[in-house]
């Protein structure tokens, strides 16, 4: 395919049709499930449709920009995001015990959302002109770019977003060719730090979540309730599911808020193992296609950024489906393109926009 070939209209939009089809398939299925899981509330479906429209628009707009723009902006976006994070600490709105929002009068705004894009962008920018695999001093400098926002977000506290931001940086390091030896060392350090983290950093409700995850029956009316009900919903779906609009768990309110973080359970209840497998395959298709696009990028910046963005998308899908099926702890990450809800959807679509831009703006390699 010649990305820059002129068409009859003299202009050809930069986008990747196979990826677009995959994304449309997932979001379309999501809307169908949302109608049922949201208890046939049309307002919910319309609202989500509007958000998806906004997300796809942002994706298509970003895809038209040449990637060197993103590269030039990386550090600035990062610095602005960091300032906003500090602002949240000082003047942020407290909502449900966590300080995450910045009230701009018209909209309430979550600066940590910016960092989900800014951290991989800046990490890719930092390593793009360094020799790879990265050397020790670069490694330390680059890690700071991830660790500082990670700590600020974890302090809010927003464990889910901190996980995404931290992983996005780690993905860049891994894709940049971080040596296996160092990774082994880091794993060792991590194993030593986790007990300290548990004792001094984690909040009670976060510890409770992990404990409940290990033994949900422990607290069947409190935090464990979600997981138990979610497992019942999935398990009772069987191979073929109970059928669209026939799920009892979500419709009888046993599955609280079955249209946001736990929509995968509502989906699996109604569409069974068949539906669940199809959805997982769709996610795998989107991830594989995106990774393929990343390997075809023109330069190291594009490769690292595209790869990291893809793996964040994977992280969302895996953590959410793992949490809902009782494989992983309850971390508040939505199922991307599926769960009802706004901000993270827009961020994810912006990520795909950057990915498409990187892929479709390749210059033929000249050495």
């Amino acid at each position, binding site marked *: 395919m010649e990305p820059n070939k002129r068409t009859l209209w003299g202009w050809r939009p930069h986008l990747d049709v196979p990826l677009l089809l995959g994304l449309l398939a997932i979001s379309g299925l999501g809307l169908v499930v949302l109608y049922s899981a949201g208890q046939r509330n049309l307002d919910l479906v319309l609202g989500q449709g509007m958000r998806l429209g906004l997300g796809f628009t942002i994706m298509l707009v970003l895809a038209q920009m040449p990637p060197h723009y993103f590269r030039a902006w990386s550090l600035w976006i990062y610095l602005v995001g960091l300032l906003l994070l500090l602002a949240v600490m000082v003047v942020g709105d407290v909502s449900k015990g966590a300080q995450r929002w910045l009230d701009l009068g018209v909209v309430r705004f979550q600066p940590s959302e910016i960092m989900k894009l800014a951290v991989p962008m800046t990490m890719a920018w930092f390593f793009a002109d360094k020799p790879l695999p990265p050397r020790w001093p670069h490694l330390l400098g680059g890690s700071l770019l991830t660790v500082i926002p990670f700590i600020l977000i974890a302090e809010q506290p927003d464990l889910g977003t901190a996980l995404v931001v931290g992983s996005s940086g780690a993905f860049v390091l891994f894709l940049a060719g971080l040596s296996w030896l160092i990774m082994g060392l880091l794993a060792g350090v991590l194993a030593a730090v986790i007990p300290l983290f548990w004792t001094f950093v984690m909040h009670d409700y976060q510890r409770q979540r992990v404990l409940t995850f290990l033994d949900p029956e422990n607290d069947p009316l409190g935090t464990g309730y979600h997981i138990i009900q979610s497992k019942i919903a999935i398990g009772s779906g069987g191979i073929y599911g109970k059928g669209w609009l026939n799920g009892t768990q979500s419709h009888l309110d046993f599955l609280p808020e079955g249209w946001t973080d736990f929509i995968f359970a509502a989906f699996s209840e109604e569409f069974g*193992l068949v539906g669940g497998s199809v959805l997982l395959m769709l996610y795998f298709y989107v991830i594989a296609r995106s990774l393929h696009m990343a390997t075809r990028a023109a330069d190291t910046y594009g490769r690292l950024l595209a790869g990291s963005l893809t793996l964040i998308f994977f992280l969302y899908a895996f953590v959410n489906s793992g949490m809902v099926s009782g494989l992983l702890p309850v971390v508040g990450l939505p199922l991307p393109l599926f769960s009802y809800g706004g901000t993270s959807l827009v961020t994810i679509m912006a990520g795909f926009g950057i990915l498409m831009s990187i892929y479709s703006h390749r210059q033929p390699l000249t050495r």
Partner: protein
Amino acid sequence: MNLWLPFAKKSVQERLIREKDNTAESALFFRRAMVMLFLVFLSLLAVAGRLVYLQVLNHERFTTLSESNRVRLQPLLPTRGFIFDRNGVLLADNLASYHLEIVREQVQDLEATLSALRARIALSDADVERFRKLARRSPPYTGVPLRFRLTDDEIARLAIDLYRFPGVEIKADLTRRYPLGARGVHVLGYVGRIDENELRRLDPGQYSGSTHMGKTGVERSYEDVLRGRTGWQQVETNAEGRPIRVLSRTPPTPGQHVYLSIDMRLQAVAEKALEGYNGAIVALDPRNGEILALASQPTYDPNPFVNGIDFASYRVLNTSKDRPLLNRALRGVYPPGSTIKPLMALAGLDYGVVNRYSGVFCPGFYRLPGSNHRFRDWKRGGHGSVGMDRAIAQSCDVYFYDLALRLGIDRIYEFFSRFSFGQPTGIDLPGEKGGLLPSQEWKRRNHKYGWFAGDTLSAGIGQGYFLATPLQLAHSVGVIAQHGIAFKPRVLLATEDPGTRVRTPEPPRALSPIVTKNPRFWDTVIAGMIQVVEGGTAHRIGIGAKYRIAGKTGTAQVFTLGQNEKYNASRLARHLLDHALFVAFAPVEEPRIAVAVIAEHGGGGSSTAAPLARKVMDAWLLNKYDAPPAAESSSTASVPAHGTE
């Protein structure tokens, strides 16, 4: 691998970067990406495996669990506490009421059902509209309310053939009721439906299932006490989700009963005395800050607000020129006028600017040095030579112009701040205003010009920028009565556990006392206030009093006269008439009540406001009420909106 690269010479670095091998890096990336793709595959496979484990291997178990999944948590709403006055007269309770609900899932033809219901009970278009709006937002198997407050008659008519309409149900709930109607509404406030803004602020656990909350008055400020705590019950339901059996329950904790310091008999006297005026009367016990009566006219009936007042009635209340919804006692700000003169005198004594015997000659006007502008005295011919006692008794403006100038605005500001002027007194009712105590700094910030000497003169007689609420006036005069010992005003007397009926009295909240250089200064000022009633501007209310009163009249200008104009009440429109004010406490020897009266456009403080204060003090001190205490009103089913007195 050169670990020391960043510390190498710049030229070496550049060479290395130039040597970055794109092909090698691309190949490295490809390898790493393939590793990740493999990990992605494994992870998603793990989830798929988990699905197989749940949906195939354990399908039977979870199906059984799902079918027997009939345990749901339901909130149990607490009963809201009652409100009583200090004598136990019931002011607010809960009444069983009924509303009509429709579960759409069980209705075959909704339109037919609606028109059939319309033939039996009154259903307005607004009712149907609201029903359709709510129905769009709720699942079809839940009940959606169609009509509130069904009458006994309507219930009887519906009950006959309700069986013919599956899905139509009559539901019972508790509605807040204010048996005395408008009486005391500005203290009580009311509860109303929770709106969407409030919903976002409220604790979702505590308010789940709740529809109402306190909106104003005591209902608002003691919401937490009155409301109680929500309980929960585990209910077993059938396959459709309908409750069959209660498995376990954490009962709700009912709200506490609240006893107010208000005496409804005195409240009635105060409100009736004010009838015909817009204004406020605040009576409090200076010995502990208990509010005895807090009247604001006009009033309104809170009962229609409980289930949502209809739009037309609300517009009448809200747009009325007399603004009945405004609590004038707390939120009405007025120029305090001459009522502040005793405090001015006290400030003069405390700062040593004047003494009791220093005199001023009053020719009927005052001229600032080097100016031709005449600041006039209310008495055209002047008071002649006046000392402090006579200046207070006769309310001589010239004396206080002179005193204000000697004190200067900074010291006036400092002294009056101690009496809660310019800031809320902190009463336990929502929405209190702080009025305005002008200072140089305030004027610099809010006006084009800085502070003028003329501003000081106006402030010295409670005019100009000076604004105060009736509550602030009552509070300050109470502090004078107590020689500086001050309490935070409050309406809560006690709370009572509804089960055990154990009362917990609310202790008085003492403020830091106001200390003057010489404690006798208080007596000096009070002596002047006694003369106000005994031969001074309010001598008419002193006649025949069975106890001694110390007071001060006030007349607040609503508009400014031209330099040579003469105030002539008979020629002015009502809305331009002066506000009439009076503050007092009694008995002088052992003060038990402090009163502030404001009658908007009432004319003169001595002619209009002072007699109203006398009525309130007579009632309280001599037990002179129009009717016996209305304690039996709690048992009557319906009480007319304006009480029984």
